[in-house]
């Protein structure tokens, strides 16, 4: 394992608390955890692309970055309505 793969593994472990907050905390907290998890996942894909020297992984990250932003904006917009 090189340093890029180790960093990707560390960030992969950091995804677990975000998933726990998404599942167990109230919806506004879950939205924040989802926003952070989107950035983490994109960074993991960048690190894997560099670690394995595989360019397609970074293409996935390029697609995921705007998609996570748009998804978070949509969830935030829908969350304006109180339950």
């Amino acid at each position, binding site marked *: 394992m090189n*340093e*890029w793969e180790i*960093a990707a593994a*560390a*960030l992969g472990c*950091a995804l677990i*608390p*975000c998933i726990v*907050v998404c599942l167990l905390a*109230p919806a*506004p*907290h879950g*939205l*924040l*955890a989802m*926003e*952070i998890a989107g*950035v*983490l996942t*994109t*960074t993991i894909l*960048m*690190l894997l*692309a*560099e670690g394995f*020297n595989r*360019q397609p992984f*970074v*293409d996935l*990250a*390029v697609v995921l*970055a*705007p998609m996570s*932003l748009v998804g*978070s*904006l949509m969830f*935030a*917009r829908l*969350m*304006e*309505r*109180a339950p």
Partner: protein
Amino acid sequence: MSWRTIAATVLLIAGVGIELLAVLGLCALRDVYDRLHYVGLVGYGALLVSVAIVVHSSFSLIGDKALFIGVFFVVSGPVLAHVTIRSLLTRERGDWRAQIVDAADEEAS
């Protein structure tokens, strides 16, 4: 070990450290407005990681796209935080400007 490898490793550790700090803040703090601070912070971690990739492999196909992603997250972080806090205020009070309008009325009277 070249200076590029050392610089890339330092930037990588700093970037991953910032992202882990953001996740730690998400877990440690309890209030949603406190947790919101870390949404903006985590983008800077992604930027440092992307700069580490550029330092390591120069402006290759991976480096260019990684730098684009890092800048994108830094730019979109404050926008996302603003939209989220506006959504939360609207959810709580019905109108996100409610507190600002009340404060302005108090100053006028």
